[in-house]
């Protein structure tokens, strides 16, 4: 898994490539925590290049969303591939965080 981070307009955008699973999610969690701990609690995950997500990966995203909300921000994801979208739908994550089609919409949902 590769992670690239950029901060624009007060929002941290993480562009993730590869698999998010029990082996890689600790690295993702650490990366996401650095934004929230640094005061950027509006977080966007660009998941267009994520090919697989496991339960540990979902847990990492939900924990981060919880912390982002606690910091008066939020977490939005966009660009899910069909296999990853299937996992998100099964877990009902779209009921607690914005799961949208593109970055502009993610920014709007987080109050850009």
């Amino acid at each position, binding site marked *: 898994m590769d992670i690239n981070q950029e901060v624009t307009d007060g929002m941290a955008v993480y562009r993730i490539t590869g698999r998010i*699973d029990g082996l890689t999610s600790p690295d993702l969690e650490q990366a996401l925590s650095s934004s929230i701990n640094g005061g950027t609690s509006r977080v966007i995950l660009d998941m267009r290049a994520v090919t697989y997500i496991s*339960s*540990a990966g*979902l847990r990492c995203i939900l924990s981060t969303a919880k912390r982002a909300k606690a910091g008066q921000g939020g977490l939005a994801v966009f660009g899910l591939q069909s296999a990853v979208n299937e*996992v998100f739908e099964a877990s009902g*994550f779209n009921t607690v965080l914005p799961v949208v089609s593109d970055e502009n919409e993610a920014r709007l949902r987080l109050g850009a």
Partner: protein
Amino acid sequence: MEHLTLADEIVVLMLDDETGAIRPLCAGFANVAIAGGILMELALLARIDTDLKSLYVIDPKPVGDEMLDSALQEIAAEPRHDGSKSWIRHFAFHKGDLTSHVLERLVRAGILRAEDRRLLWMFSRRAYPQNTGREEREAKGRLLAVIFDDAIPSPRDTLLLSLADSSGVLDAILSADELRKASKRIEQVVAFEEIGRSVKAVEAEIRLQIEIASIARPM
């Protein structure tokens, strides 16, 4: 025991305070809830992971708990990556009396006492009253907070709610009206975790078998 595992916590919640026995409402599902709790704890300890089709070991290193390590060792030795439902059924139905095993470990940890009580002056049965009840109060408090607060719950509390929902604990600690009002929230949170959904699916299989057996019983 440094802290209670999810399997320990669900057993404490399933106990009836007056009788010191597993509540009748929960008894038929106790082993399934414990099996689910074991897998959930291994997932939270980053030893196993799951997806919609499979459960697999990501780190076979022992966690230092005999019940969890025994399960982890068994999963690690299996070359096929069956799904979580299959492992829940395996541990619940083919590993003996999980409920008694957890009750006895809670006695050893000083959370419960074991008492032999007489029933109708003839039958003897073992009861497990709680020593302080602190663990049950703490777990119930977490469940109620998840149910009646719209915030995103922690993974551990999400999983505990899944077990409580599937084992009948919620029917025991909430009124029918509270349960009805909270049903959407409970459904939402239970869906978050794959192992939680699997525990619920296996519980539904048991309920169906009980219904079929009751229909098929000769009058």
